């Protein structure tokens, strides 16, 4: 597909869950707010990034900032989902991600010269691990259909999406001497899979309840 068609589709697929989240906001339990913020940040990032590229500016700087914000918001999401037994672990992960981003920004990407690919690999990997832990915890507690549980749906999508992101980002990070069209095609894997993942997010947002039912472990 052409660049503009891809871009338009990307924006549409990102804006749909963002709009559903905005419309349903008052009917959604607060434990899902960080996820909605992450979706909105993603939408703003893609739209703003596309606009500034049209004006011949590069979008590296604001993408690098978005990586950091998204990492912190997702960490906060898992905290809201009671994943962390202690605040110490949560703050340690925040610190680790902050240091990782800072080191790559200072020594490798210089913040405006290249994308923080290593940081993206680290935080995507962390999100995969946190998602798996949440899925395990849900398995021990959920007594209704897992398929209709927005937490489960979101975690499964996180695992899939971030696995593909890690695979693709590993190529960008290794700086192999490969052509521009190869890079574009690699990007397309993330873009096209993004269509599917954003559709799943839209469905998950529609299923988000206002109140969280009380559940106990088996």
């Amino acid at each position, binding site marked *: 597909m052409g660049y503009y068609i891809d871009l338009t589709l990307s924006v549409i697929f990102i804006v749909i869950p963002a709009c559903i989240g905005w419309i349903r906001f008052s009917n959604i339990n607060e434990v899902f707010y960080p996820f909605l913020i992450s979706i909105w940040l993603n939408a703003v990032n893609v739209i703003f990034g596309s606009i500034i590229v049209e004006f011949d500016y590069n979008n590296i700087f604001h993408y690098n900032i978005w990586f950091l914000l998204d990492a912190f918001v997702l960490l906060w999401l898992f905290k809201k989902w009671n994943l962390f037994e202690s605040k110490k672990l949560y703050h340690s992960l925040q610190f680790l991600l902050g240091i990782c981003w800072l080191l790559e920004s200072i020594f490798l990407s210089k913040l405006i010269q290249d994308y923080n690919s290593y940081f993206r690999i680290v935080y995507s990997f962390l999100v995969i691990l946190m998602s798996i832990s949440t899925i395990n915890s849900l398995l021990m507690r959920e007594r209704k259909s897992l398929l209709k549980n927005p937490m489960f749906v979101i975690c499964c999508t996180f695992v*899939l999406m971030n*696995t593909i992101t890690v695979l693709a980002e590993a190529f960008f990070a290794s700086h192999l001497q*490969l052509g521009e069209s*190869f890079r574009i095609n690699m990007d397309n894997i993330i873009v096209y899979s993004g269509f599917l993942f954003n559709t799943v997010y839209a469905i998950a947002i529609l299923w988000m309840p206002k109140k969280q*039912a009380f559940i*106990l472990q088996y």
Partner: protein
Amino acid sequence: MDAKETSLYTAILIVSIIVATIIIFFIISIIRQQRKNVELYRKNVLAEITAMEKERARIAADLHDELGPMLSAIKLKIGSFELTDEDDKREAKKTDDHIDALMKRMREISYDLIPNTLIRKGLVIALKQFTDFINESDGLKINFKADDDISPEQNKSIHIYRIAQEVINNTIRHSGAKLLNINLKQENGTLILATTDDGEGFDHHAAVKGEGGIGLRNILNRTEIIGGQMFIESEKQKGTKYTFEIPV
């Protein structure tokens, strides 16, 4: 892309598809296994609670049909004694009072095991009677409000009654509350039982993480058996609000 890049790209694409397929297969197997586990768990809980209710009904019947008449006969027998000695009369009176107390207590236990009012007059009257009984004591004051047209199925009524009973017991034992509001209404095919107390409250997130108390687990099990959902809003020093939404 040149030939080398195309081969590499194809390889990446294949690896991505394989990894995605493995993950999707894993997710599907998790969902299927969880469904089996839930089904098994529900069957076990249902069997456990049904057996418990049957046992309660049997004990209540035994108390009512065997011990009750026996105590009445003893009371009658003692009343028929023609005593002349004042000490004997006093002792007979004491024994008679003991038997009265014993019969009263037996009726309470029997009612607790299986409330006849619930079977004869329905859920609302049974709950009204139970809350009136609690209000007779000095501790907790209960405001009970219910729509008149509520009449769930018999097998659901017993569970809803037990849920309300357990909530009241929990409030008395753990909350230190002075006031408990209970509201029972029906909206769009859903029966809503909502209770609010002014007690100490508790950290229900901690309860969710752990195994919870026996009372909470009983309430949750009964709610799930009748296909309902249970909601708790509680914080330290801010009281506790239970809401049960049961399809009827």
